[in-house]
């Protein structure tokens, strides 16, 4: 059924392109890695013209972020700013990786970065530390994510389709309405940044299967780890696509070379790369996986977040309507869930190209066409059964999130259309026209709503953060130990006045207990040292901190030198209704240190990540050694063999 031979010179309808042009020129135009021995690093030299085209093409989409001001009303714009703000505060307090954000939930704290992938926020923090304001840092992360995502798609597809087609696909990817929706309307920083990693992961899989060199595996590992650390949600929804892609590539290898072993080796290399990615990111995902059960999941998946309310109506996939708001039940969303008519039509051209192609990559293209159809299907109510019964599908939270996969697949198909439809002689003008039409197609959507912050939005700082939490019931996550979601707190009162919290000890409880005296000696974002004197047994010190795995109490003697007792989180008590950490203390005068520290899953995760880093270094070392042994002529930097 499949014809894996070289590009045939089959003529187009009506003899529109002669066989010589379609077959030979096209083949010469496209670097064919299955013949040339390409891998993740061993790529053809970049054509600066195409690269420049991609970067310049991204400028209009970045311009809205250059506008003075901030898009405070965008869905997650405030979250983005306050995540960076909170992370930076913790960092300045000496906490290198703050799994616990102490100022969330009105000061009761929440283990956000234990369950929420941090990389996009970390990029924002870095930019903030380099001197940008918090909101500027957020906007810069979005701008960077857009440019880098386009470059990533270009980097991936130039190996498959050639540089011209890859450039157009990169533009389609950058200007896909869902991508713009993620940035301008949702302000979904993690998901937008995940757009960078998805093509890189695909590139890594392709390289690993076709040339299972250490560098290919290392590259895939890094890209997959990047994706997992940027958005575990995207990683989970994207992984089946990647796995399927790897299988398809292995199948192509097997059929193309009539060598089953080659296909098996390829798929093992890709699995190794994926495993390396998992290992490198284990310090995050392992605790996230095992300790997510300790947070109130209804705040993530219940109520408004019930996926049944957010299926996309079929007409919405093509409706060019655009607006600002939130996803609501029914067909009348103000926001847009469109694929984009222009990318869709150009993707149909790509589909036609697949029917006409006779190269192995046709199967790859067909795979992306299937992905586009299936991912789009998952956004609609017709897929309800899958959402209810297939594990992992509902992890996407909102059905329209699968448009992310549609966007990847549609962009690839757009590239396919150019790849097969434009001969080498006119590749540049046709690519420019197609790119221009794609940009023009999305031009009505290229704006953000810059507004002055309301008091409950900004300016970024503790008072506005508290007002934001109180007014919007956002960033008020609770753990399973809380019986109630707090609406305000004494700590919030302090922070709303712009003052720093100096202790988390609940002194109201202390004052009610005449047999207990407590004094806070030192306070940091993830630990506190207190002195106490209990005049009777059975006393308890309550901290204004939500219980969660990791909180550990160390009880020393009065001088603070002799450790007498260690109470792990599951040995501590909890005070209702907010599930506050409560330490049962012995009689007498003592020093108590309450600290948020690593649990066994976090320690194991870190250990696995260290092993991952060592493996990565080993792979890179192996690669360098191999390259040295091969000599400069075969060092991997040579111009690839063109047909």
């Amino acid at each position, binding site marked *: 059924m499949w014809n894996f031979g070289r590009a045939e010179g089959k003529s187009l309808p009506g003899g529109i*392109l002669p066989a010589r042009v379609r077959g030979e020129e096209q083949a010469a135009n496209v670097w064919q890695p299955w013949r040339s021995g390409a891998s993740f690093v061993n790529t053809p030299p970049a054509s600066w013209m195409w690269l420049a085209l991609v970067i310049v093409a991204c400028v209009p989409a970045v311009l809205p972020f250059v506008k003075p001001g901030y898009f405070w009303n965008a869905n997650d714009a405030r979250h983005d700013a306050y995540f960076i703000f909170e992370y930076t505060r913790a960092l300045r307090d000496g906490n290198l990786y703050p799994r616990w954000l102490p100022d969330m939930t009105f000061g009761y704290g929440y283990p956000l970065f234990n369950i929420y992938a941090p990389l996009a926020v970390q990029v924002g923090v870095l930019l903030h530390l380099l001197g940008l304001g918090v909101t500027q840092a957020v906007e810069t992360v979005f701008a960077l994510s857009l440019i880098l995502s386009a470059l990533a798609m270009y980097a991936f597809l130039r190996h498959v389709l050639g540089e011209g087609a890859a450039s157009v696909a990169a533009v389609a990817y950058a200007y896909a309405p869902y991508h713009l929706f993620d940035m301008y309307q949702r302000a979904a920083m993690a998901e937008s940044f995940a757009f960078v990693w998805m093509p890189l992961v695909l590139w890594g899989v392709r390289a690993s299967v076709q040339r299972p060199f250490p560098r290919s595996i290392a590259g895939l590992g890094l890209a997959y780890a990047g994706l997992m650390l940027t958005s575990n949600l995207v990683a989970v929804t994207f992984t089946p696509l990647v796995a399927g892609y790897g299988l398809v590539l292995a199948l192509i290898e097997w059929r193309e070379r009539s060598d089953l072993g080659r296909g098996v080796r390829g798929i093992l290399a890709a699995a190794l790369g994926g495993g390396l990615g998992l290992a490198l990111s284990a310090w995050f995902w392992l605790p996230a996986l095992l300790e997510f059960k300790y947070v109130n999941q209804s705040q993530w998946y219940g109520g408004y977040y019930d996926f049944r309310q957010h299926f996309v109506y079929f*007409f919405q996939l093509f409706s060019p309507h655009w607006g600002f708001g939130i996803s609501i039940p029914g067909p*009348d969303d103000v926001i847009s869930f469109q694929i984009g008519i222009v990318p869709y039509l150009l993707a149909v051209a790509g589909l036609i190209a697949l029917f006409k192609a006779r190269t192995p990559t046709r199967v790859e293209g067909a795979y992306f066409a299937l992905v586009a159809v299936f991912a789009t299907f998952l956004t609609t109510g017709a897929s309800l059964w899958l959402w209810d019964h297939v594990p992992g599908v509902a992890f996407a939270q909102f059905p329209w999130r699968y448009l992310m996969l549609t966007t990847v697949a549609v962009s690839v198909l757009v590239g396919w259309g150019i790849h097969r439809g434009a*001969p080498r002689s006119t590749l540049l003008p046709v690519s420019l026209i197609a790119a221009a039409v794609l940009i023009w197609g999305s031009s009505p959507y290229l704006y953000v709503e810059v507004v002055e912050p309301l008091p409950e939005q900004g300016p970024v700082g503790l008072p506005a953060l508290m007002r934001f939490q109180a007014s919007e019931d956002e960033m008020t996550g609770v753990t399973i130990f809380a019986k109630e979601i707090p609406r305000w707190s004494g700590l919030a009162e302090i922070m709303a006045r712009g003052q720093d919290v100096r202790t988390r000890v609940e002194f109201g409880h202390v004052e009610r207990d005449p047999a207990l005296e407590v004094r806070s000696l030192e306070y940091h974002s993830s630990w506190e040292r207190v002195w106490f004197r209990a005049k009777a047994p059975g006393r308890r010190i309550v901290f204004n901190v939500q219980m969660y795995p990791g909180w550990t109490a160390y009880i020393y003697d009065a001088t603070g030198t002799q450790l007498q007792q260690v109470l792990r989180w599951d040995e501590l008590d909890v005070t209702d209704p907010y599930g506050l950490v409560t330490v049962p203390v012995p009689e007498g005068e003592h020093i108590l240190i309450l600290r948020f520290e690593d649990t066994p899953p976090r320690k194991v995760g870190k250990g696995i990540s260290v092993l991952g880093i060592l493996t990565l270094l080993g792979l890179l070392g192996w690669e360098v050694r191999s390259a040295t042994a091969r000599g400069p002529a075969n060092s991997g930097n040579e111009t690839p063999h063109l047909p």
Partner: protein
Amino acid sequence: MAILSAKKASRGGEAGFRPLPFLALLLGLLPIVALWTYPGWPRVATGYTPYFNFHRWMAAPSLLWTPPYAVKPPIPVHIPLSNAVAGIYVGLGGSPLGGLRFSATLAIILAALGVFLWLRETWGHWPAMAAALVWAYSPATIALAFHLGHLGELWLWAGVAWMLALYAMGARTRRAVPAGNTWLALSAVGVIVTWGALLWPGWDGWLGYPWRGYTLVWGGAALASAPAVAWTVRLARRWAAAWLIAFILAAIAARLTLVAAPPTYSQYVPPPAPVAVFGDDALVLLDAQVEGVPAPGHIITITTTWQALQPQAIDWTTFTQVLGPNDRIWGQQDKPTGGDYPTSRWQVGEVVIDTYEITVDAAVPSSLRLIMGLYNRSTLQRLPTQTGSDHVELWSR
């Protein structure tokens, strides 16, 4: 000239069924089909007029008829093909609005297929497909479908396209070729009329109300321009594959029309007939629900549903009155129609719900009627309904 008058074979004309261009055409039409799957009705300048007419036609189907509710430009006699197709859909268990949506969708698909079959004979499959797609995304088609709601004319152009297709296919069997140069000359005019209008200042008005293009002229021009599109694709084939050019052209067309003026919708389903139409298709009172009885001291609540079929220059005021014998008023409320959302801000096709409350006097007679109407507050002049009355009676006893 030689090229245009040469035999079909030398022009690349192709006979026989080839599934790929056909499939490509259907996939290219998918967005338009999808846009008709909204569970409601688009906000078109004719409002729910097609729906009201459909209900009347279903009550007494006939081959030729005069629609009771005006559709601009008024055509005295219609062939109710659109209603007939919608009727089949309803007969299969669908809703009336669903039937009309189905009818519109089918008209567009058939028209595009007609264009394809017509031009395929002369210009080849892919150029013909390009012309069919560009026709489907042309301003005339998009305006007729999603901004005017002129379903009958969509069927008209489908019919014309099929006549051309049948003629072309007949010409094939006679081994005679239609005069391509004549078509191209017509087409050049068609292209100028169809697409040139969009370059006119304030061109977005060409797609929405008042849609200055004359329906027949613009629709015909759009159809006539199809050969020029096909010809363009043929000419550009040395630049790229015809199917790629076809979809780039379709994307450009869609960007100029659908993306520039996206359809908007309402889920509202009106009763089979409007309560009243005020003015010259100005404001339609789609529904009026009365709650409460005009007993002494009681409050009557009237929930009205309005739709503007034209932009309103005047902020109309609604009067609601409980009248007794000799038209004595026993209770009334006058307030701006739409309340805080005055009629001058209503969008064409938009459905607006407004509520009125009347407190009935303490000593009302037994014979009463409840009326409402519109007037201009600055002149106190009432806006007559299409029946000539200056009010509409909602209830009486």
